[in-house]
């Protein structure tokens, strides 16, 4: 692309000569991210050092109608931050941690802050930043937001989406706006939810408000080794199905173990094992001890040869180090490495791993598996020599087959790495033309000119207003797909329920009571629990973004919804998200729709993440005039934090059978040891009366008792919301 000379001088004036790179040799270092199989030379690199400079640079690019790609540390694994003869805008110099608020448990950071630097900075407050991608020593928070990064500990703590409270961004047209995570019902299209994971296509982050997580009081890490991959996979399913939610559950196969043990990060994994499981539980001392014992038993029942428990921090760090550096350690095996990312339902891990192994054997390749087993998030990696054209072709073919296998198994093409360039060819196989078209429309709201990271995420031919109504020819080699299993549809609104995966897909018309009746026999629940009664339908709860007393402990609808089907006002059926617990394939239409009411269309189906119902659950009431507020605060903020805590007025107290005076109510839950250990903390708060735990169902009909304040949206955010609505109502203008 030809860059006007005036743009160059403007950029130099903004950031200084030293931070504009134009000479080809100096741009070589910026040709790749951490998937160097993809390489593209930027036309120039510009590296602003302040938020004001980023804004000025984006405005200059807008004035000159120049496309650009934002980049963090270049540790991505999808070729997403490659600028092919356009401008590369690096934000790695914006590395200020602006403020840490230990009481509110938030921090304001710039996008170039390295993930692990943030955790180190907040460690003195007993806090950490929970999303911990394996590249956390190098990757930036800005890049994490662009990719909606996960990591081993997102099994329990959630992905980046669940930990960002607000983002100030500069849109590709140079306007600045702040997007907030919704805190109230009917907040309108969730722009922040859509921005997170948009892979740099919706603008550039300037400042992020991240949520911080208290360090757990106790942690246990177990290493179980197995003589068969199947056994390890089945043990994973059994652990989660037993109602235990580990902080992390990682698997490594024999080839990966060999690479790690040969590196300087050798962790003492048994090299003769077929697979090892690294399972971590955290929480209170009592809960952790009980969970660790049960996990050990389950692993042994499923054929574990040995189970090693790391009790101290040093032993734990050593076990983790091998896992975190496994990807780099594979560099020892062969000159090049393909790192893959896909998600399948946890319950089919064993057959899918067997299929992947067979695919490798058929192509004469070694496939190393190191992955987040608890999430079903696979990382099949193939070490190879890219200079060998025959081998490269085999790798390419094998990867296509692996992807097809995962899609056929009900999974998705990316759990945390993003689509970028690498997964572009698979988008057609995963999403319908209508859904891809909806993604294009969303992109146009943020970036009508398609100047931000053009050519990534959604194949261009699927954008109808650009290329006519019919989908164009598919790029890349076609993939032969095995037939998808027919959904086990039933008349009662349950479309697919997979207890072993803790996922359910239901009709939007299903009521919460019906949903509860379905999951209760399996000791599971969908903890939506909004204020109101259980005649609310799933569709209403999602459309309005309704939350209840467990919002902070168990999450809001935006945290619990895996995917949904929307019938939009144009009559298109959009299938957003998927049915697996991690999914970053394409733009996040699911988040966009939740809380948007009926403005974008009508939700017809939803896939939800389930949780094991707590083994023990107790409700306690304390008269408010006898409450020890300090004890209450330390209970609610500490390691024994309840599921829910509310102050209720006298009339509500009377309505649920208490004395007609104001009360403070608690809902404590967990395994038996955890609940027993919590009781003294409750007693410390005042004279507590035990109630039936079902009192919370009754109480939900009377709330909310203190509505959180809605963040105020600026004019730009309001305009974006209006344009989202228009994009889902107006008819497309077809350009021939």
């Amino acid at each position, binding site marked *: 692309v030809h860059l006007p000379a005036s743009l160059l001088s403007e950029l130099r004036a903004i950031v200084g000569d030293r*931070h504009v790179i134009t000479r*080809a040799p100096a741009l070589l270092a910026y040709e790749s991210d951490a998937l160097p199989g993809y390489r593209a030379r930027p036309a120039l690199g510009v590296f602003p050092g302040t938020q004001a400079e980023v804004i000025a640079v984006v405005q200059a690019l807008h004035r000159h109608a120049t496309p650009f790609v934002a980049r963090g540390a270049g540790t991505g694994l999808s070729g997403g931050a490659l600028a092919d003869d356009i401008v590369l805008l690096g934000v790695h110099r914006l590395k200020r941690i602006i403020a840490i608020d230990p009481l509110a448990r938030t921090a304001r950071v710039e996008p170039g802050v*390295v993930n692990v630097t943030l955790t180190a900075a907040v460690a003195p407050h007993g806090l950490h930043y929970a999303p911990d991608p394996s590249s956390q020593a190098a990757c930036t928070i800005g890049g994490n937001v662009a990719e909606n990064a996960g990591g081993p500990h997102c099994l329990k703590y959630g992905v980046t989406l669940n930990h960002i409270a607000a983002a100030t961004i500069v849109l590709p047209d140079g306007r600045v706006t702040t997007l907030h995570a919704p805190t109230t019902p009917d907040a309108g299209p969730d722009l922040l939810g859509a921005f997170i994971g948009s892979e740099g296509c919706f603008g550039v982050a300037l400042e992020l408000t991240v949520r911080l997580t208290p360090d757990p009081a106790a942690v246990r890490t177990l290493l179980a080794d197995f003589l068969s991959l199947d056994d390890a996979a089945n043990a994973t399913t059994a652990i989660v199905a037993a109602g235990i939610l580990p902080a992390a559950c990682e698997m490594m196969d024999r080839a990966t173990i060999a690479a790690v043990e040969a590196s300087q990060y050798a962790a003492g994994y048994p090299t003769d094992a077929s697979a090892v499981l690294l399972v971590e539980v955290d929480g209170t001392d009592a809960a952790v001890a009980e969970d660790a014992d049960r996990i050990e038993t389950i692993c042994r029942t499923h054929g574990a040869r040995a189970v090693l428990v790391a009790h101290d921090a040093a032993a734990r760090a050593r076990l983790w180090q091998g896992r975190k550096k496994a990807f780099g350690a594979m560099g020892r095996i062969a000159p090049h490495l393909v790192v893959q990312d896909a998600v399948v339902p946890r319950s089919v891990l064993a057959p899918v791993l067997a299929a992947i192994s067979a695919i490798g054997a058929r192509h004469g390749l070694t496939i190393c598996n190191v992955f987040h087993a608890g999430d079903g998030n696979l990382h099949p990696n193939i070490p190879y020599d890219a200079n060998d054209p025959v081998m490269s072709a085999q790798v390419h073919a094998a990867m296509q087959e692996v992807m097809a296998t995962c899609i056929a198994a009900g999974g998705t093409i990316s759990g945390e790495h993003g689509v970028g360039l690498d997964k572009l060819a698979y988008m057609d196989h995963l999403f319908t033309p209508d859904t891809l078209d909806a993604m294009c429309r969303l992109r146009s709201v943020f970036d009508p000119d398609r100047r931000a990271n053009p050519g990534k995420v959604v194949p261009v031919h699927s954008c109808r207003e650009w290329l006519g109504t019919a989908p164009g020819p598919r790029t890349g080699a076609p993939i032969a797909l095995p037939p998808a299993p027919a959904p086990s549809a039933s008349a009662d609104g349950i479309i697919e329920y997979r207890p072993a995966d803790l996922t359910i897909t239901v009709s939007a018309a299903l009521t919460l009571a019906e949903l509860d009746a379905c999951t209760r026999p399996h000791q599971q629940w969908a903890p939506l629990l909004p204020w109101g009664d259980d005649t609310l339908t799933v569709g209403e709860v999602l459309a309005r973004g309704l939350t209840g007393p467990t919002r902070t402990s168990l999450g809001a609808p935006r945290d619990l919804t895996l995917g949904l089907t929307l019938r939009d006002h144009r009559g298109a059926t959009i299938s957003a998200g998927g049915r697996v617990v991690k999914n970053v394939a394409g733009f996040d239409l699911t988040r966009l729709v939740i809380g948007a009411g009926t403005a974008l269309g009508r939700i017809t189906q939803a896939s939800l993440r389930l949780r094991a119902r707590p083994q023990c659950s107790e409700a306690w009431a304390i008269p408010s005039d006898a409450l020890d507020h300090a004890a209450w605060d330390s209970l609610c903020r500490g390691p024994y934090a309840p599921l829910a805590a509310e102050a209720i007025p006298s009339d509500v107290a009377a309505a649920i059978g208490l004395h007609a005076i104001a009360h403070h109510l608690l809902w404590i839950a967990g395994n038996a040891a955890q609940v027993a250990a919590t009781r003294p903390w409750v007693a410390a708060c005042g004279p507590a009366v035990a109630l039936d735990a079902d009192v919370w169902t009754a109480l939900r009909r009377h709330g909310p008792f203190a509505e959180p304040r809605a963040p105020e949206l600026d004019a730009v955010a309001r305009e974006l919301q209006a344009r989202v609505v228009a994009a889902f109502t107006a008819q497309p203008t077809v350009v021939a």
Partner: protein
Amino acid sequence: MTTVPPASSTPLGSSALASSPLAHAAAGLDACVHCGFCLPACPTYLALEDENASPRGRLVLMRAVLDGRVALDDPDVSTALDSCLGCRGCETACPSGVPYGALLEATRTTERSITTLPWIGRVILAVFASPWLLRLVLSGARVLRATGLARLAARWLPSRLATPFALLASTARPPQRSYAAVRAAGASPREPVALLTGCVMEGLFAPVNRATERTLTVNGYTVRPATGQRCCGALHVHAGDRAAAQRLARENIAAFEASGAEIIAVNSAGCGAMLKEYGHLLHDDPLWQARAEALAARVRDISELLAAAGPIPATGPSLRVTYDAPCHLQHAQRIVAAPATLLQSVGAATLVPLAGSDQCCGSAGIYNLLQPDVAERVLAPKLAAIAATDADVLATGNPGCLMQIGGGLLRADARTVARHPVELLDAAYARSDDTDLRQ
């Protein structure tokens, strides 16, 4: 994808390139998976904020040179390579085991076949390669230091000019009570040891060499002289002058062999790392390779030796001490715990941790003289971290680091002074009643 045309012209023809040291080391490039873990471990990347000043970026350029995509003498390539401190902090961070130090050395050696060092670098290397010139220059420096002129110049000259004077002034030591070192009663007799006295160590840090000899003696080692020893050659290797380094190595091997010592003790981390790599340096010399390897196997850092001996504890003055790991100790020799063991044996000293102690201070041989601006940027966070410890003494076991940090502290008018760990142990021994040690 963009296809990049091969570099139009390179003075290094493709056949010369194919037989260059870089080409021989190329297998090491294949280990890099581009993960970027080296970025936050690289002091110049953190200071300059450009991937061309990072290990990953430099490896990309090395590969591009080999593939003919860019010329080795392209100014962008030279700038990227010259900006490297050679601290090898990236090797510790690298999960794939990329032999970065070896690759850098091979690239610089290849580079020297077509380009020359800047004049100041050539002058410095020539001085270190010539015993009499070196003696002359170091005597002159000692005079400058003794007159107090160096200290004045460090304080009053503008930043860039002040740097060399600050480095020199920081090597001054107040007179110290001497004592007759004998083997302590608690120490078992140990192997005979020869000390690499070094160039800068003996020229500017002679008291540290004497302290090293005394602490070795107290801990049961017999110190033997090794006459005829020379500069270790590290500066020459790092600058790409391999031939000069090989000449120096051969002389040193002969000198230490003749000393009859079983162990070669080194109190300069950079020189120790070089001696330990003599086998690699002379790998293509059939006459010397075996001797080089045998010698390298007998080299120990002073902290290794003293930590192995116990060491004999003694009570020094009550001080807050913080420790900065020399890159060539931590990353090149992978010695992490021994210096702490040594410092802990100095009673009454409180050891406080230093944030970022694994990061280079910017000294890097003669780097701070060749690239004073970058060296100063790299040093800045180190000085801030030292100030945060409120320590009386910053301990570090390498002359370059002692001067770089010491000079920085001097110019910042900090109350902290930079000292070698053996100086603290020696001071403690000197304070102890002689009879304490004999019993």
